[in-house]
């Protein structure tokens, strides 16, 4: 076990170092090799069943981590100073002082605490595997990206180096059981994200990277405030011990709320969502890795870890409402977006809101929902981001409207994207399984369930529209498969398969990993656990016959596909243009002025409603109210 953990952390670090030194043309495959190793290890760890989840490693890096922590904060302070950014300076100096104080308080500096339980196993698995595919995809992407922008100032070595550092940080974050180490890894992700967002060194990129740093520093500060408070009430830095043994009183909940707030900043919940949107200027692999499938999950992970502590409290309910509100509000904001990456970003925030709502509901069913959503969301979002990355490089635009009729241009990628979008909203795929669980388990909370209902409808709107946009094609053009590098295509195909087939595996995932995890807290999460009967999830309120639905879906797909092939035998007809004359040579019609018109349509972005600053203002205000409610919820 020790050796596994050591490799999980050190292999990416080593690879990072190597990539930094060796010229890129030679170093290309180093990150991939490193990630294949970590993936294999994470699979191995995932397959372990009976092991001692808490390890006390023989080696002790504690002091090293402390030192690095300070260096990190100093680095942030330096950046704040250079950029004359007062908030960054303020947050980080406060953090520095708090950390100093805390490190001095914790005299018996403990060992390197490790906790690998079922959720860590799941997290490790998808973080490593998804990273692997994103890395593979990133190689051709970054090469092109560099050519495209003729970037001189930055190097791809740098880029991969930071990505690898990030993977190491993420792995550390998942396995550590030490509150301050968790903080350190938390800050590592902040660092990586700061560096990667600013990677292109354009003005916008720099500004957005500073925004990310600012907000994440605030998150770090929250974390430290929370942990200092917790430490005073329950003097331990062992997270597991805190969760299991700490006395839950209102002051304790207040500090816990700060920790949760840190998680919410990392997960870009309202009103801290801005940094994630800004982060979309970064090259797409960054967005895919950091800002959708993995890094934002760090916040979720944090909340999940602490969730048993606040079960059945008013605080938990307010957390759920916060999440629900984010789910609804950001889904609404997503309608107004025509930038594909921004839609993805809003959708990420929205889904994270849903997950947080599930954590807030804090029943066995909802925790199951949260885990299922986390797992499938990671795969699905990674797929969609990679698709957009591929498309973006081909058409040199991120605008959704420019992707209309994409099927003509790049049929394979378009279809993969469409299926990715469909998997976000329709049964029997994983996201919907999660949503079903979420709504059923939130039904007791009327306000929340209405927010989820509205939000899920809006989600359907923007995804369906997205999928529809890609499907059309221009009539008289012959469609041929686009040529793209295998390194681009393979990750897409594999992730597509994952998105499609993994849901079928979810009963097993539940049985083997989630169910035992929930059972460990059976004193808190008591009734209405899902049971598996013949491949269907069942509890006392409802049942989701996953296997039958899956088989029906496959059957339906083949039926429809058969008729699709049948239809393809006939030539296409021209659509209805009010009888206007059809230009035979190409697609479209001739208008009365004799001009050829290519029919143009665009989505409704409801700009008067959604983009209007009033709505944004109201959403911000309301979210602040929810946050206050939430902090107050801790006090009650």
């Amino acid at each position: 076990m020790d050796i596994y953990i050591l490799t999980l952390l050190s292999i990416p670090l080593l690879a990072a170092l190597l990539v930094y030194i060796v010229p890129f043309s030679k170093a290309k495959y180093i990150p991939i090799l490193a990630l294949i190793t970590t993936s294999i290890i994470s699979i191995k760890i995932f397959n372990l069943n009976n092991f001692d989840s808490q390890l006390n490693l023989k080696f002790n890096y504690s002091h090293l981590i402390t030192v690095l922590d300070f260096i990190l904060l100093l680095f942030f302070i330096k950046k704040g100073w250079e950029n004359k950014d007062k908030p960054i300076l303020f947050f980080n100096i406060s953090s520095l002082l708090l950390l100093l104080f805390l490190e001095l308080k914790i005299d018996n500096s403990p060992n390197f605490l490790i906790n690998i339980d079922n959720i860590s196993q799941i997290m490790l698995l998808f973080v490593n595997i998804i990273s692997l595919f994103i890395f593979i995809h990133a190689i051709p992407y970054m090469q092109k990206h560099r050519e495209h922008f003729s970037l001189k100032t930055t190097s791809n070595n740098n880029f991969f180096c930071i990505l690898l550092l990030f993977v190491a940080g993420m792995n550390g974050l998942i396995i550590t059981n030490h509150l301050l180490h968790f903080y350190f890894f938390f800050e590592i992700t902040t660092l990586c994200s700061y560096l990667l967002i600013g990677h292109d060194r354009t003005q916008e990129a720099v500004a957005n990277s500073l925004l990310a740093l600012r907000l994440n520093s605030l998150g770090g500060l929250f974390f430290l405030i929370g942990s200092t408070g917790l430490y005073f009430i329950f003097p331990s830095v062992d997270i597991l011990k805190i969760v299991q043994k700490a006395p839950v009183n209102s002051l304790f909940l207040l500090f816990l709320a700060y920790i949760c707030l840190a998680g919410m900043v990392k997960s870009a919940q309202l009103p801290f969502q801005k940094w994630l949107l800004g982060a979309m200027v970064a090259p797409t692999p960054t967005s895919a890795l950091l800002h959708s499938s993995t890094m934002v999950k760090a916040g979720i992970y944090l909340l999940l870890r602490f969730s048993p502590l606040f079960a059945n409290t008013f605080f938990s309910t307010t957390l759920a409402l916060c999440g629900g509100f984010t789910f609804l509000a950001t889904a609404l904001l997503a309608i107004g977006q025509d930038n594909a990456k921004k839609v993805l970003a809003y959708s990420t925030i929205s889904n994270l809101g849903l997950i947080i709502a599930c954590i807030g509901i804090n029943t066995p069913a909802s925790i199951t929902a949260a885990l299922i959503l986390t797992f499938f969301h990671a795969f699905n979002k990674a797929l969609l981001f990679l698709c957009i990355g591929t498309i973006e490089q081909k058409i040199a635009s991120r605008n959704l409207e420019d992707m209309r009729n994409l099927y003509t241009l790049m049929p394979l990628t378009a279809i993969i994207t469409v299926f990715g979008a469909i998997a976000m909203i329709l049964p029997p795929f994983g996201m919907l399984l999660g949503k079903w669980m979420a709504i059923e388990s939130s039904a007791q909370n009327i306000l929340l369930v209405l927010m989820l209902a509205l939000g899920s409808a809006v989600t359907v709107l923007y995804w369906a529209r997205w999928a529809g946009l890609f499907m059309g094609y221009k009539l008289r053009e012959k469609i041929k498969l686009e040529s793209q590098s295998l390194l681009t295509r393979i990750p897409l195909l594999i992730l597509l398969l994952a998105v499609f087939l993994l849901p079928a595996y979810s009963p097993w995932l539940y049985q083997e990993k989630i169910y035992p995890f929930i059972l460990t807290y059976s004193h808190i999460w008591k009734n209405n656990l899902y049971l598996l009967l013949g491949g269907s999830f069942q509890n006392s309120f409802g049942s989701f016959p996953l296997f039958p639905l899956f088989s029906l879906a496959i059957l339906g797909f083949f039926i429809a596909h058969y008729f699709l092939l049948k239809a393809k035998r006939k030539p296409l007809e021209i659509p209805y243009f009010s009888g206007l004359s059809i230009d035979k040579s190409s697609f479209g019609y001739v208008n009365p002025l004799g001009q050829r018109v290519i029919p143009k349509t665009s989505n409704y972005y409801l700009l008067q409603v959604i983009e209007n600053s009033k709505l944004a203002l109201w959403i911000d205000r309301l979210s602040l109210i929810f946050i206050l409610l939430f902090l107050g919820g801790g006090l009650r």
Partner: protein
Amino acid sequence: MPKTIIPFGPQHPVLPEPLHFSLTVEDEIVQEAIPGFGYVHRGLEKLCEIKDIHKMIQVVERVCGICSKIHALCYCEGIEQMMGVEVPPRAKYLRTIWSELHRMHSHLLWLGLFADSFGFESLFYHFWRIREKILDINEKTAGNRIIVSVNILGGVKRDLSTEDQKWILAELKEIENKLEEVKDTLFKDYTISKRTKGKGILSAEEALYLGAVGPVLRASGVAQDCRQLQYAAFSELDFEPVIAQEGDSFARMQVRYFELFQSIDLIRQALSKIPEGPISVKVKGYPEGENVFRVEQPRGEVFYYFKANGSKFLDRLRIRTPTFANVPALAKMLTGIELADVPVVILSIDPCISCTER
């Protein structure tokens, strides 16, 4: 911001006639509306060079089948004026009666189509049921339901017997009752008001500036009605133009609805005052010179220009129709409204493309 361009027409289920609008919409709000015409253009004004002045009556009746009688009336009175023919008074009254019947059938038809434009199917059917009564009157008294062909130069072809007159009055009474019945629906129904109020607003100044005519103009508060020019027997009848103030689609509906009652009243007056006597005089010779004549059609003022050279063919016949005059106003009204309101606003001017393009 990318836009949607909709080829609205020429064949489109809510447009009764072929007419094209290239609508540029954004979130279903119309940004730009470019009309395209020419799908009904026949060039019938030119037929005056090969069809003599008597045959041209049948041609101008078919400028538009809806108010064909009034076209023929305008044409005949214009020619008669040039030739100095005095039409017998009974013929004048008969012309008035038929032309008012035409106005009623046209307005009823319009009310129906208007209801259809905002998706009120049963109201559409209701109005068309009422309208059938007028068509029956046409058929019984003139021999055809729609294109009645009663006008000739110098008078009319057919007379109304006393029984017919009585029957018409009885039918009118019934129509009046039926119209009263739907008054609440038109003016107090929530959904109708929702769809028509404030849609396609035209102020009085704009209406005058853009040259709008007929109910469109009157709905903006301008009391202008060509029947006050006193052609046919209108000089002897008592009426005031119906007006409304708001200038929106609802106001236009209001004007047309109340004009129905005005027409009923006019027909009653005419029937009570109708003198005995011949219904036509013989017209000899051919006109010479130039003339213009204007009458009020259901859609507004129609304008005929004649140029004659003393032969049996006219040199030039030029018809300016009310819809033609209303199109600039329409183009103005279409911008800034919702796509769903486009049919409502287009229909609110009661477009008649057939006469616009001739």
